[in-house]
């Protein structure tokens, strides 16, 4: 049995007008990157904040490193937190902020090294208000690392970052995973979850609608794979002669596949008959396709009720 660092059981959080989290259960193992995915308002941030001890829950059980975050006064020292809407004292510089965290958390980490890690060294003495959105976000991540935490809560760590900065954050997260940190990551970027997360849970309207490894989820929910061939009318007639069902989409011919093996058969068939196809690709549904469809379907069901 892997060691559980976080366990959540039948967690509910109601505000006066809505139930933001409606009876969810999951657990996170030590050293695991666990990702909460879900559309806006799904209840991700609410869940994360309850685990951080920032918000009180309505009902259900929560344990973080064996403690109840609502009660514990010392848990905060073992957590690294990057909130979704990170902000800091507008006149403080990243270096001052990091030194402050170092002082309060009695951490031994090197401020210069952390700045280096998130690529903020050249902005170390710029007041917070003069940092760009992405630079602010990087400072938030840097602050969450000061105490060398056992668990990291990263609520949309890469939103608002340019593609290069995003990759940099990804590599930081990978490094942290390599050091055995447990990470709870929420994101809207499905590729990010696919790339970084060991397991994901898809949340919608306060409920977890599915969870597992990204692969498992795609397996469970994907529609058929497609073979996409770029070719002319001659290819089309060969395909028709061979009895394959297909659709033309512009310059492409799209063939639905019963299995991946079928793709090799078709390519062989065309190759032997010297068909004029320029190239082909195999298209599997990504986590994103599955996600959009799942969340969409659930939304429609709800509306139909």
């Amino acid at each position: 049995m892997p060691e559980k660092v976080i366990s959540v059981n039948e967690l509910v959080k109601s505000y006066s007008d809505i139930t933001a989290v409606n009876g969810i259960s999951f657990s996170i193992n030590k050293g695991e990157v666990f990702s909460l995915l879900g559309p806006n308002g799904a209840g991700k941030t609410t869940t994360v904040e309850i685990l951080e001890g920032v918000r009180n829950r309505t009902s259900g059980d929560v344990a973080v490193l064996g403690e109840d975050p609502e009660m514990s006064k010392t848990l905060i020292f073992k957590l690294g937190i990057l909130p979704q809407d990170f902000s800091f004292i507008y006149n403080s510089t990243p270096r001052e902020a990091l030194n402050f965290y170092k002082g309060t958390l009695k951490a031994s980490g090197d401020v210069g090294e952390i700045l280096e890690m998130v690529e903020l060294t050249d902005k170390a003495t710029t007041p917070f208000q003069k940092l760009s959105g992405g630079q602010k976000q990087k400072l938030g991540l840097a602050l969450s690392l000061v105490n060398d935490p056992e668990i990291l809560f990263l609520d949309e760590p890469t939103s608002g970052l340019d593609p290069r900065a995003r990759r940099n954050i990804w590599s930081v997260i990978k490094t942290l995973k390599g050091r055995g940190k447990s990470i709870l990551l929420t994101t809207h970027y499905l590729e990010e979850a696919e790339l970084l997360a060991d397991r994901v849970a898809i949340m919608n309207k306060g409920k977890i609608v599915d969870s597992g490894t990204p692969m498992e989820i795609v397996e469970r929910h994907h529609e058929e794979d497609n073979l996409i061939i770029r070719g002319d009318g001659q290819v089309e007639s060969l395909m028709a002669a061979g009895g394959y069902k297909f659709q033309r989409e512009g310059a492409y011919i799209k063939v639905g596949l019963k299995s991946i093996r079928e793709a090799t058969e078709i390519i062989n068939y065309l190759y032997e008959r010297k068909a004029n196809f320029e190239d082909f690709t195999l298209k599997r549904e990504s986590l994103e396709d599955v996600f959009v469809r799942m969340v969409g379907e659930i939304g429609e069901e709800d509306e139909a009720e």
Partner: protein
Amino acid sequence: MKLSRVSAYFVLHAKSYMRSRSALFFQIAFPIILILLFGAIFSGSSYSPTSLVIQNESPSAASWGVIGAINDSGLFKVQILPESQNLSQYIDAHSVQAALLVPANFTENLYGGGTGVLVLKGHTNPTVASADYETLNGILTQINFKVSNTSQRLVLSSQVALGNTGKTIDYYVPGLIGFTVLSTMFNMVYTVPNYRRERLFRQLSFSGLTKSEWITANMMFSFLMLVVSDIILVVIGIYAFGASLTLNVETILVSAVIIFGGLFFFTSVGILAGLVSDNEETVSVVGNLVMFPMMFLSGVFFPLSFAPAYLVTISKFLPLTYFINSLISVLDYGNISSVSIQIVYLLIGSAIIFAIAVRLFSWKQK
């Protein structure tokens, strides 16, 4: 409460504060401008009441002689109050700033070879009263010289704190110190809603900092700034406008305690005010609602002698009044013992408000 965390936040706060020019301006330059302004307007001048109510409970040639001399001096418009009326009630009812009582035993004492004591009563602006005191004393000294050349037998005692000088600037220096302490309240009135909106308290809590550590660090920094700006105030008051203050180790230490008590009090009030205001407009409304009545009614800027009686009564219930009166007693008159109980009240009151503010001041999200 961990000192290491308090000092870590103190450093963070101090650095960001120093970077803000407007904050520095209000902390240091504003009090200086005020004292220069008040100093220029009032230095050297002193109020002279147009009328002096006198009640003679000891009618005799001697007592009426003294009253006549006071009247003849031309410095007061003497108004005699019949014995049948109660002087204290009359003072309250008519907001009399200074009244002289010739006590029943006056003549007897004087003729018996003792000292004739006159009592100056009033509950008003000490500056005005002390100006009266000085003037009356001057007249009495002259009478004494006429009566006998050897010993002083007429003595004026007073029932309000009176000093040896009547210069208005003496009164404004402690008053402006009071004002600097009062204005620290605004730090909290603005910071609390702003930090809440930006969710900075949540972010600070991630560093392990607690709210009482946050408040403590803020107060320590404000205290340091107050010490700096108040020293500047006192120095300008003394050297530019000739204020005469009683400065020695004791009065300075006691003043520091009073300033700290006031800071403690107004910081707590500021937190409470900050908690009720959730956006920028309400912040200034709430801030001004708390600040202006106190500022005007405490007599820092306007002597209350011109105010109607009910305002004088209200002012007695304002903490700032006690706070400033304590500072005046200590700094102007070197009178520590008479304010020690007030200081204790100030500290107890502050501790109560502080406890309420800390309780209501939650760093958690709902």
